[in-house]
């Protein structure tokens, strides 16, 4: 397998607090990779550094051989990286349908068309994506009024509309009930497989991770302390101490 995303010596600090500490990381094309770590471990910062929402203090990020540092988010998404956000990130006053439609418009570069009616574009593509994530029945509802779990599904549809090769999901099941979590994981796994995507996701719930990830990296205080196959990571003494242990007691 080839390396899709390669990160070396990445540092980021906020007013003296080090959120990312010398992180080096390789993501292989086609793998499902999870970043786990307790809240505050720096998972979201790590994603923001990849997607251009934050600029690293030091280090490099390259995607399929292309340097990403310094590129704005809207350029990075066009290279084939899409993401969902940990805090729900949709267009609350638009309909579910329009939420996805606008992403397809942007993907096709039609946002500069002042004459073609927006609502007539990409109707089939939008419908397909909504069916894929199971939101077709809610197409005409106002997105902000959907349940939490469905808004997460909508985010996934928006991300997929950018036709990514690499999908980054930031805590895809955060705030979900156990049943919703199971459904979401199954759905994500199927979609990723069907579309041949590479998946990198963060998660704090261990059971989710072992169900889907082929490789796991553990982030703790901004550092990657272990990386490898699920079983190896689970049995790593350092990981047990800082992460699994906390869960066992908490």
């Amino acid at each position: 397998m080839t390396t899709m995303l390669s990160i070396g010596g990445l540092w980021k600090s906020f007013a003296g607090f080090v959120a990312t500490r010398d992180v080096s990381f390789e993501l292989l094309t086609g793998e499902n990779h999870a970043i786990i770590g307790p809240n505050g471990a720096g998972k979201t910062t790590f994603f923001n550094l990849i997607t251009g929402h934050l600029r690293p203090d030091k280090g490099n990020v390259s995607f399929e051989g292309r340097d990403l540092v310094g590129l704005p988010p809207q350029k990075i998404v066009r290279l084939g990286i899409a993401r969902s956000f940990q805090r729900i990130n949709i267009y609350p006053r638009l309909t579910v349908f329009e939420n996805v439609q606008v992403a397809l418009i942007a993907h096709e570069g039609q946002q500069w068309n002042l004459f073609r009616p927006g609502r007539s574009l990409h109707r089939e593509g939008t419908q397909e994506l909504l069916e894929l994530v199971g939101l077709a029945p809610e197409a005409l509802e106002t997105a902000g009024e959907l349940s939490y779990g469905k808004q997460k599904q909508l985010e996934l549809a928006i991300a997929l509309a950018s036709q990514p090769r690499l999908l980054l999901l930031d805590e895809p099941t955060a705030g979900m009930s156990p049943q919703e979590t199971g459904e979401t994981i199954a759905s994500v796994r199927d979609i990723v497989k069907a579309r041949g995507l590479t998946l990198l996701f963060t998660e704090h719930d261990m059971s989710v991770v072992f169900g889907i990830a082929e490789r796991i990296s553990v982030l703790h205080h901004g550092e990657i302390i272990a990386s490898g196959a699920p079983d190896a990571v689970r049995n790593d003494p350092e990981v047990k101490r800082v992460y699994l242990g906390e869960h066992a007691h908490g």
Partner: protein
Amino acid sequence: MPSHRQLIASAIVVLLLALIPLAGSRYAVDLTTEVLIYALFALSLNVLIGFTGNISFGHAAYFAIGGYACAILLTTYGWPLALALPAAVVLAGLVAAVVGFFCVRLTQIYFAMLTLAFAMLVWGIAFKWKEVTGGDDGLTGIKVPAMLTNHVNYFYFTLAVVSAGIAALWVICHSAFGLTLVAIRENSVRAGFIGVDTRRMRWAAFTVAGTFGGLAGALFGMYHRGMYIENAFWTESANVLIMVLLGGIYSFVGPIIGAAVLHLLQVFTNQYTPYWPTVLGLILLVIVMVLPDGLIGLARRVKARGGRS
């Protein structure tokens, strides 16, 4: 494309407006002309506010530039209207593009303050550049084509230009561009990460708003046969902002309703009391407290309630 119902409704409204001069009241004709001009002005501002989510406190600047430019070209340089009007509109758009270039680097209150600052600059130029703008005496005696000196003819001219302007804004606001602007208003971070250059899109929206604001200003100057520095003052920017808020920012027609209601209220209030600013304050209070989405929002809520019972 607009639905058949929308097209028919708009045609009926334009037709009814076209019948107003038949009633024979000069007062009604003049009042309607003013409302039409303000409706276009308010709609142009709503491209920024309602569609893009950027509140401008300086929209009067483009209204004034359009008005002054058209007036100066007609009067000082003797250009024909067919050249002066488009040139004035393009100039307003160009200035909006230059100002917008800087403003869209900021967001929220900082954006609003910068639009205000540039608008005050425009006011300052109108005030100081006496030999061109007439300074605080205003630019009077604007030479409009003989055909338009008759108030009824000018009304029909305004009706035609405003209708065309509103139609153009409708197309823009409902285009792929317009839908993307709404996405930016709703969530600019997310819009950025579907591949939209949100800053450039906001810049374009700013330019569109300024262009159509300039068109409204040009109509205004010719209607009054004069432009005055008050037309560039921040109170004008506040006035059109209140029109937009009163009508409702989340609907296309809201600002038209807001412009009509606010302007008519002002005219009627002034007949009974000199305390229009007090009345305006009360209106603003009502909008903020109970009509956050304006009269259109209120109408929608009433309709929704009626439909349920």
